[in-house]
């Protein structure tokens, strides 16, 4: 099983990602958003944990009604410097109170992990060339957080 960083630790990923029309293997799956939208009932009827993978241009509100059914929302980073996924994750956590896994997929690199964790990502499928063991250090690079975000409800000035 591929490795995944989850809650700051390396684990084996129990989810299998399938694309738009591949046959569905048994077990927990992550499917593209469009497939979920088209085959909602059938996917739910499998009775297994399910996640969707979404583009970073997806509006958080568009996912709102589905969230109770989803164990994972995987947000794509087409480039590591494309910051839209940060807002999407934060809105899912803070505005739509999503408590399932939010996973960063695609161009996920060590040096963005700290910010990603702050806005609500709790799982990271690192790009293949990354040293996952070393990347774990990224989460503790800073102990100070000025802003409120998904990991910290209060700005520093309400904690100082």
């Amino acid at each position, binding site marked *: 099983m591929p490795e995944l960083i989850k809650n700051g630790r390396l684990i084996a990923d129990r989810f299998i990602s399938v694309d738009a029309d591949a046959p569905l293997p048994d077990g927990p799956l992550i499917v593209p958003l469009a497939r979920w939208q088209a085959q909602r009932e059938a996917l739910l009827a499998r009775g297994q944990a399910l996640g969707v993978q979404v583009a970073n241009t997806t509006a958080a509100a568009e996912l709102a009604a589905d969230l109770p059914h989803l164990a994972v929302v995987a947000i794509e980073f087409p480039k590591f410097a494309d*910051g839209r996924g*940060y807002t999407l994750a934060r809105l899912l956590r803070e505005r739509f109170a999503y408590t399932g896994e939010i996973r960063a997929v695609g161009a996920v690199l060590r*040096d963005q992990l700290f910010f990603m964790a702050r806005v609500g990502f709790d799982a990271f499928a690192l790009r293949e060339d990354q040293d996952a063991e070393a990347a774990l250090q990224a989460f503790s*690079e*800073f102990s100070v957080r000025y802003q*409120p975000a998904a990991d910290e409800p209060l700005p*520093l*000035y309400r904690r*100082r």
Partner: protein
Amino acid sequence: MYLYDQYDQTLVDQRVEQFRGQVARYLAGELADDEFRPLRLMNGVYLQTHAYMLRIAVPYGLLSSAQLRMLAHIARTWDKGYGHFTTRQNIQFNWPALEDVPDILAALASVQMHAIQTSGNCIRNVTTDHLAGVAADELEDTRVWCEIIRQWSTLHPEFSYLPRKFKIAVSGAQRDRAAAQVHDVGLYLVRNAAGETGFQVLVGGGLGRTPIIGQTLREFLPKQDLLSYLEAILRVYNLEGRRDNLYKARIKILVKALGIEEFARRVEAEWVQIRDSALTLTQAEIDRVAACFVPPAYDTAAQQDHSWSEQREADAGFRRWLARNTVEHKQPGYRAVFVSLKTFGAAAPGDISAGQLDAVADLADRYSFGEVRSTHTQNLLLADVRQGDLYALWQVLDAVNLATPNIGTLADIVACPGLDYCSLANASAIPVAKDIQARFSDLDYLYDLGDLRLNISGCMNSCAHQHVGHIGVLGVDKNGEEWYQITVGGNSGNDASLGEVIGPSVARADVAATVEQLIAVYVEQREPEERFLDTVRRIGVRPFKERVYGAARPRNPSLEHAHA
């Protein structure tokens, strides 16, 4: 000034260690160029033509004497003995080795400084009025708000990978000295009908390739909502700003595409959701920060010291300097003093040597409560000087070549590094500034010409803000040669305007002569006491155009816009 507590200090210390690790990984080949690039940029490290450049943040232009001495130390130890103040009130060093940058940052952290977010597609160093806290026409000290914004924007997890850079300026006086209208967000401190202070919020201003004056997004924003409102603006921009074209990625393009009403509607829709969140500023926090900016212990007897009026009578040099390089202060008996970094001679506009940095630090300790400010016109300011100390101060400044009495004149040229350093440049800026200065070195003539702002940028990126110079000079590349497009009538104040192009670009050798022609038109046409800018506004661009290109010259529209 604001003093770090253990949180602020811990953050900059941890930032140094983080960057140290990133540099080590880069040098070990573990980080690719394009992955390291945004990381170094967010720590102020650029790659220029000859070397790396390190841009250090001077939050809202405020420096202590200890910080100045550290800058001098850095100049001596890791650079070639000088630094360069920028149009965003920051200072940059042109010659550090990448390997040394972590040590330089550690040295900076030891005096509560950093280089965080001085570059990159993130929220940049917030700028303000260099006379904040001492200007008579000020509603409130803007530095309090700048510091609050600085902390909120520092390592903001959601807004560190924006479509493009994001610049905020705050102005709190009747006269806008912060160029708020040409920033991504400009904030004017205002008072509403109920007598409460808050912010008028402007959005979508900016220079560069597509210069635009900002529009009002909200007439009155209560103070305590500042951060939630900024967060709403940034969120809309982060999600909807263009990412497909570098030149269309600034917020001004989004605002233009949507129209200000629709943009405002989206910001408001976002804001209602977060307005009453924990981001609402507490009075305790506002007070905590404001306590760092209380006026210093002014000498209430300062205005009784009249020694300076005799010295003024006796010494013409002092008199000139006093008239040109010092301005009124809200405290009776005090003046604010400009330290001119526009020396005639070889030094580039904004450059300062290590020895001069130390000298200014000493003067700040002796005469100005240990603080110095940098201005967006690339000079320094000693904000709180007793009138009785002015003569002694002037003598020392003069001895270290920092008293050139040319502030606000045509010789007070704002120029970017241009081709001498910058890898993006089309043309030189510094040598052109020096050419122009050489032609206008007669002080009496400069004074006769009055307030005049001339800005020179080496390329379309417009780092020297030539669009808002009364005279703007923009370097363009014409078949590998340096040519310059010239504009007149720009202005960055309350009545901000963009300069108009006078005609086809001119060769480098002709720039100074062309400026002379523009000035000749002004001298002939001006009314008594009329500033250059006002003459341009009254008579239009045409007389200037005709002087430079000749009235009979056939109009050639394709040429006119060849470099627009």
